[in-house]
């Protein structure tokens, strides 16, 4: 029993309660307390990460308490390598998002005095943010599938209020669409969760005990479908992706970062852990159709992104393309592709986070998300333009930046995957490589239209990034460049978990064979 993970979850919850109970008019204090709490969580997470033994047992820092014995439900938490890096991703992004959203709820006015966003409750926004952080940590840490489901569904609510109360003009439509899509997927998963419990007949929801519990191929397929649809909506995969551009475009920039950067990762994380390991035969049977969907997402997301006129929608569509890569990597079922996919989850969080925030800072200066409203910003605000460019280049996976490593690993891993012994995966990898070109188009064209060219009249009064905004973007850029050159620490943590996953899926893994031969 290790108290670390429950503490990690309890700290933000307590912080949220404190923030919510602060007296009226203490907005500034609320922000400071929130930031402090999130920094404490970050430090605690780093402490946990440092103690994590890469060669140790799969689940570390385990803690299991009885929760609802009648249903066989335990409050079971523990992290493996992938969960750990995703928790770390959340813990890094939250303080950044808090700083970035510092004035989001204050109400903003554009230069000519028109109201862009009205004043809203600051305390509510920041306490929702902390509640969300606790749930993000919980969903990745849960080793009890029921507990995972509880967080999976419950975390929709704070995000729903963050979009619906603090978002743009179409916010309530976007928030409802987001909630209903996710809820529907979640409910299908609930049926599968119950059926898993009933069919396995082990009177437990603990993930390690349920691995290999379902043997019947037909049952596996049905349960796989229940889990997979929920995760595909969450990820999101074409054709159930339509909620993401709406939600991400309407959400405040900070919430959009958490939505795309962390919440959607629950989908791909769930595919890798639950769909594959609990239902290995079904996963193998469905690999080809899913890889096809993933390739469609990759290409479709990239093409549609090119056509967008709204920066936030554009970034959302690039994410759909990137999630396609992650899903393809997961289902190609080779050591390299899955490690690449897991690494991609982290890198995408940093890259897209930086891009969303930089775009958000740009939008906050003009009050319009439309690309056509900008032009020549570079001359007025060189710093903002520089960060925007780096974040964009990370989005198109430029070598030397972190997302290149993961995208390359996914493509190579898929191309060389021997899991199915056919050339089909190689074809998928080749087709997906087209997206690399498309990515250059959508990113560079956006940068060109907004940053270069003659300076538009409306941007002449722009101020460059202030200290707060630099503090927001600098760490992300540092991480993007740092992990671009030196991804080893992340891969060292991720690799053993992927190896274990492939063992549970019973796929021939040349990586293990080589290691065995070398020893």
């Amino acid at each position, binding site marked *: 029993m290790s108290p670390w993970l429950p503490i990690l979850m309890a700290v933000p919850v307590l912080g949220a309660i404190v923030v919510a109970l602060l007296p009226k008019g203490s907005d500034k204090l609320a922000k400071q307390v929130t930031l402090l709490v999130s920094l404490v969580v970050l430090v605690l997470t780093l402490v946990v990460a440092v103690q994590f033994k890469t060669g140790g047992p799969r689940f570390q820092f385990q803690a299991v308490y009885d*929760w*609802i*014995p*009648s*249903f066989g439900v335990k409050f079971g938490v523990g992290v493996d390598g992938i969960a750990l890096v995703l928790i770390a991703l959340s813990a890094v992004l939250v303080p950044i998002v808090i700083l970035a959203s510092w004035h989001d709820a204050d109400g903003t006015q554009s230069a000519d005095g028109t109201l862009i966003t009205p004043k809203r*409750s600051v305390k509510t926004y920041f306490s929702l943010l902390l509640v969300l952080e606790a749930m993000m940590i919980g969903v990745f840490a849960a080793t009890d599938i029921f507990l995972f*489901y*509880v*967080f999976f*569904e*419950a975390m*929709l*609510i704070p995000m*729903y*209020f963050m979009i*619906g*109360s603090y978002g743009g003009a179409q*916010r*309530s439509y976007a*928030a*409802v669409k987001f*909630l*209903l899509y996710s*809820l*529907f997927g979640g*409910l*299908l998963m*609930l*049926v599968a969760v*119950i*059926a898993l*419990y*009933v*069919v396995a007949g082990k009177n437990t929801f603990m993930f390690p005990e349920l691995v290999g519990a379902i043997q019947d191929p037909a049952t596996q397929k049905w349960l796989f479908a229940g889990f997979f649809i929920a995760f595909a909506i969450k990820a999101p995969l074409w054709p159930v992706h339509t909620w993401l551009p709406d939600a991400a475009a309407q959400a405040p920039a900070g919430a959009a970062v958490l939505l795309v950067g962390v919440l959607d990762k629950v989908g791909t994380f769930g595919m890798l852990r639950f769909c594959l390991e609990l239902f290995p035969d079904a996963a193998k049977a469905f690999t080809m159709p899913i890889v096809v969907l993933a390739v469609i997402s990759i290409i479709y997301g990239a093409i549609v992104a090119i056509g967008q006129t709204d920066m936030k929608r554009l970034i959302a569509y690039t994410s759909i393309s990137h999630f396609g890569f992650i899903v393809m990597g997961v289902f190609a079922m080779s050591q390299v592709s899955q490690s690449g996919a897991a690494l991609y989850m982290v890198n995408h969080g940093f890259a897209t986070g930086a891009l969303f925030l930089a775009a958000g800072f740009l939008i906050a200066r003009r009050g319009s998300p439309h690309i056509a409203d900008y032009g020549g910003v570079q001359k007025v605000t060189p710093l903002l333009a520089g960060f925007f460019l780096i974040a964009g280049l990370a989005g198109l996976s430029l070598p030397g930046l972190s997302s290149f490593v993961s995208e390359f690993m996914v493509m190579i891993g898929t191309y060389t995957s021997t899991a199915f012994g056919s050339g089909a995966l190689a074809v998928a990898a080749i087709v997906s490589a087209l997206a690399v070109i498309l990515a250059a188009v959508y990113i560079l064209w956006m940068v060109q239209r907004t940053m270069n060219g003659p300076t538009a009249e409306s941007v002449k009064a722009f101020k460059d990034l202030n200290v707060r905004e630099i503090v927001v973007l600098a760490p992300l850029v540092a991480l993007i460049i740092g992990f671009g050159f030196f991804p080893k620490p992340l891969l060292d943590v991720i690799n053993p978990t992927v190896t274990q996953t492939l063992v549970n899926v019973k796929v021939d893994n040349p990586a293990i064979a080589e290691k065995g031969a070398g020893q």
Partner: protein
Amino acid sequence: MNDAVVAPTIEYGTLAPMLLVFGAAVVGVLVEAFAPRYLRKSIHVPLTLLSLAGAFALVILQVVKGAVPTAPVAMGAVAVDGPSLFIWGVILVLSFVCVLMINDEGHFVASAAAVPGSADEEEAEAAGGSHTEVYPLVLFAVGGMLLFPASHDLLTMFVGLEVMSLPLYLLCGLARRRRLLSQEASMKYFLLGAFSSAFFLYGTAMIYGYAGTVSFTGINKALATGSLLDPILLLGLSLLGVGLLFKIGAAPFQAWKPDVYQGAPTPITALMASGTLVAAVGALLRVFWVALGNMDWDWRPVMWAVAALTMVVGAILAITQTDIKRMLAYSSIAHAGFLLIGVMATFDKTAQNSKSLSAILFYLLVYSLATVGAFAVVTMVRDPGGEAGHLSRWAGLGKRAPILAGIFAFFLLAFAGIPLTSGFFGKYAVFAAALASGSEAGDSLGGWMTGLVVVGVIASAIAAFFYVRVIVLMFFSEPAADGPSIAVPSTGTVAVIAISLLVTVGVGLFPQPMLDLANQAASGLFIR
């Protein structure tokens, strides 16, 4: 000559909770007859509350003493078993909190006999008249609710049904505002309710014709040996089913619910949406599990269709509603459908059966308490002409009254079954019971039970849409300039909301104690 009349044995101690409520109701009528007008309310309120609390204490006492009888009491007329005691406890708590709401001024008409809008009405209102008969009527209704699910033969059940329903017909017509709507509701409820009672009675006669007895034990025995395809039996079964399904508002017998819920004074709506539903589901279970358990091959496929239809109809029609009380009525229809999923989860093994019974009892408890809380919030949002029923009036409530709107949103999330609310565990429990039942070897419906759960899931997703729509209205819309005012709540209303909220949050986080209670109540199943 052997003509001495043998006095029936009545176990007064066991029946004490029910007898106390009925006794207090009779005393209430006497108070109406003899106490001066200005004193009546101050006598009624403590009398009603104390008798309900006392009855609750008696129920607890029986449970604590472990004196749950193992055979029907009162000459086989009433079965006071574990589920009965649990249902009694729930109903008594619900009626207690509903009476706290009834206590508030302004829900009931000054003079029911005065024509709406007439000079008589104005005069009565100016004189501050009020119908204190409300209290004994509620007590009678509650007494009926106690008898209805605990009765052990069809005739006693019919008596329970009528004692429960008749006062409610009357109470529905007593709203102070929008009186024509209220009277229309009362009339509709009475006519349809009378029809359904007739169906029930006719079914009783048919079953008697088949089994030669109205006792549940007797019917069960007759079914164990007799032919199950006797037309008279099948006719009786379906007629009984219609009568009972009407009371829980299952489709296609749901039409009365929205009209009645909308027209009735809100505290009475709360009582019907919670207490009546609990009692009726209890009675339904007793008839179908105890008396007709041996012919589940006949009724379960029909119940499948009814459950699926009820969930879908409730969820879809709720979307189009513009009145908050009508919307909650359709939501209650959808929840009746979810409960029917639990009713269908019957097993060959007792241990499994008691699990699904426990799921239903747990669901009843959490759903009905959240319902009472939601209606209590509805009473507080007011226009000059009464409660602000129209949904558009709720726009921007989150800005005017953030705490109230937040509480209401929480109840709505509980109805939608979002995790970390009590409603989620209720829904989970019945879904799990149904899936387990379907996977049992030899279950006549097998995979169909999974299908029903999937229908339930889809209905939940549709239902989530209209719950969420209200949240959107309250929090994401700008408030109207002449929006409704928030009534300063009385202590009673505050207590109602606090209790409901506490249970909804508490059970949402730590359901185990309540589950233990439900498990314990369900462990012995019904007395057969």
